């Protein structure tokens, strides 16, 4: 009987376990072992055990520190993305129902009628662009007024859901310094105000917001301004702010017992005090989860952006650790060194998670 049970369990487990061994466990061991060898696809030298050579080479590699800096710098967008998601969630959670039950639906219908009429008027009077925006506004506002928070949540989630090669290429066009939508808008606005203004170089520029710091020469510091890294960060915030973080915050907010806020309100706490002393502490587990996930993602991030937008440039300023690993492993075919970098990245991810976990635990028991 007992043997039978074991056999049944093994049969159910087998397909997954085999795949797990072949494509997860064995590769992990291979890569760990490989990081201590001169494993390379250019078969000049026979495979040899080289001890910690790859690791000491990494710590002496000026580029490693530069790319680590780039990775950390791009992660400065995380607080903005997380804070923005929290603010948006609190705002969305607040409720959008009108006191009179059917007022929302009526207003929505009204918005639809107004937008349609004015949209067609604009279209016929020869302003198709304004008509386009009017139709979009009418669509969002009528759905929003009629169905409330769900509409906005759906719209905010779209950039995250569609994120990938396509949206990265889309932003590459928006950032074009000469005719992209962003600089076009900025420069036209400046022109209308009578100011001569040249928009930022975005993906072609090595400037950064920390460019005023005395960074080492090989960090390709282009000075203070908006450059390729800021472009990637802005796109990241657009993608992340309404994404999974918003949904997780909304779920967290929904699980807070309303009595807590009601009691605080009776005690005379204002909106901010209620957020500071009731909502935020109650959300601590959610915030903690989001911070950990974001850090893990951030440390491994930047590959697609580098590969699709900038090839890691200009002058290496958008090369992150993940793109560095790709370059070593798949372009220079230096698998031993690439594996060693990947394991240092793993160690970083692991220790930050551990730290957050301990800190988060203490915070939670306050």
């Amino acid at each position: 009987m007992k043997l039978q049970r074991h056999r049944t369990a093994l049969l159910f487990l087998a397909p997954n376990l085999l795949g797990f061994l072949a494509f997860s466990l064995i590769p992990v061991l291979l890569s760990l072992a490989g990081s201590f060898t001169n494993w390379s696809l250019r078969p000049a030298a026979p495979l040899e055990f080289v001890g910690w050579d790859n690791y000491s080479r990494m710590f002496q590699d000026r580029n490693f520190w530069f790319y680590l800096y780039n990775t950390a710098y791009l992660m400065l967008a995380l607080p903005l993305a997380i804070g923005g998601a929290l603010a948006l969630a609190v705002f969305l959670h607040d409720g959008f129902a009108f006191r009179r039950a059917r007022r929302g639906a009526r207003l929505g219908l009204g918005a639809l009628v107004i937008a349609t009429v004015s949209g067609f008027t604009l279209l016929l009077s020869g302003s198709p662009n304004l008509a386009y925006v009017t139709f979009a506004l009418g669509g969002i506002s009528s759905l929003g007024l009629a169905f409330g928070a769900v509409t906005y949540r759906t719209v905010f989630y779209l950039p995250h859901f569609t994120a990938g090669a396509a949206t990265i290429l889309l932003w590459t066009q928006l950032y074009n310094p000469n005719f992209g939508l962003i600089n076009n808008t900025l420069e036209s606005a400046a022109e209308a105000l009578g100011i001569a203004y040249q928009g930022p170089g975005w993906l072609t520029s090595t400037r950064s917001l920390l460019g005023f710091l005395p960074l080492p020469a090989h960090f390709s510091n282009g000075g203070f301004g908006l450059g390729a890294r800021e472009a990637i960060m802005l796109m990241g915030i657009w993608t992340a702010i309404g994404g999974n973080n918003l949904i997780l915050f909304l779920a967290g907010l929904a699980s807070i017992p309303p009595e807590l806020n009601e009691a605080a309100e009776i005690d005379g706490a204002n909106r901010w005090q209620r957020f500071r002393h009731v909502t935020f502490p109650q959300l601590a587990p959610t915030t903690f989860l989001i911070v950990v996930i974001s850090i893990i993602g951030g440390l491994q991030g930047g590959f697609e952006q580098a590969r699709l937008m900038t090839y890691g440039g200009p002058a290496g300023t958008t090369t992150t650790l993940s793109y560095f690993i790709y370059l070593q492993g798949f372009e220079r075919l230096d698998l031993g060194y690439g594996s060693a970098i990947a394991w240092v990245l793993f160690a970083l991810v692991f220790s930050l998670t551990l730290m957050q976990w301990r800190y988060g635990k203490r915070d939670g028991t306050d």
Partner: protein
Amino acid sequence: MRELYTFLKHLLLVFLALATLLPFLWMMGASFKPNPEIERLALLPEEPQPRNFAVVLRLAPDSRTGRPMDFDFPRWYFNSFFVAAWVTSLQVMTSAMAAFAFSRLQWRGRDTVFLLYLGTMMIPGLVLTLPNYQIMVKLGLVNTYTGLILPMAFSAFGTFLLRQSMITLPRSYDEAAEIDGATPLQIFLDVILPLSRTGLVTLAILTFLGTFQSFFWPLVMVKDDHLRTLPIGLLSFQTDYGQQTELIMAATVMNVIPLIILFVIMQKQIVSGIQLGGVKG
């Protein structure tokens, strides 16, 4: 007063939503523009050119060269759906079976093996990619559909997600079925699977989306044009047709539209899935 406040809140969010959508609105407009109009500030083309889509789909010749494009975009489209469908069905199947073994069956070493699974979830995909590629070289699977699909067909995350939803089902269901003489396979198929539908649908959506959009693995696996998936195809598009923004945007629109449709249809499951899993996506 309160009604006015509610109204103002709506107003603010409508403008935030418009700002979020603006890149998409530009993309739609640009995909219909003739090339010289791309540089203008206008969102919409003055002379709409739906032909851009026909050129990308190879139904019309590229006006620059006078012959169809070198790329097989329709094939990339097919590949993306084909690979994503295979990975999704295999991954859901193997994950469900393993989750069943981890949650409903008793066997020695169960929790140890499960911990091993959880442990590998923490390892960055990058650590695995280099050796996995070498394994594929040794197996001769580089530049094949199998190579694209197989390593993605097993997931510790999927197993974890489904185990979490299966473990909440009351034991009495299995016991009742066992007394009626059901085999474990029958219990799995007729009792547990139907009850875990939410988890299965969630995993299917997340896996499908993840595979459809995946970039790193297909990038290193695929060499031939006819095996490219959309994201990889878009990359070569960008490289070779970088000046023809209107064609790139038409291709982008065709990549994004299926996702928007999928999201609007499945939005309820997606939202509850994210709350269930807390990770990935």
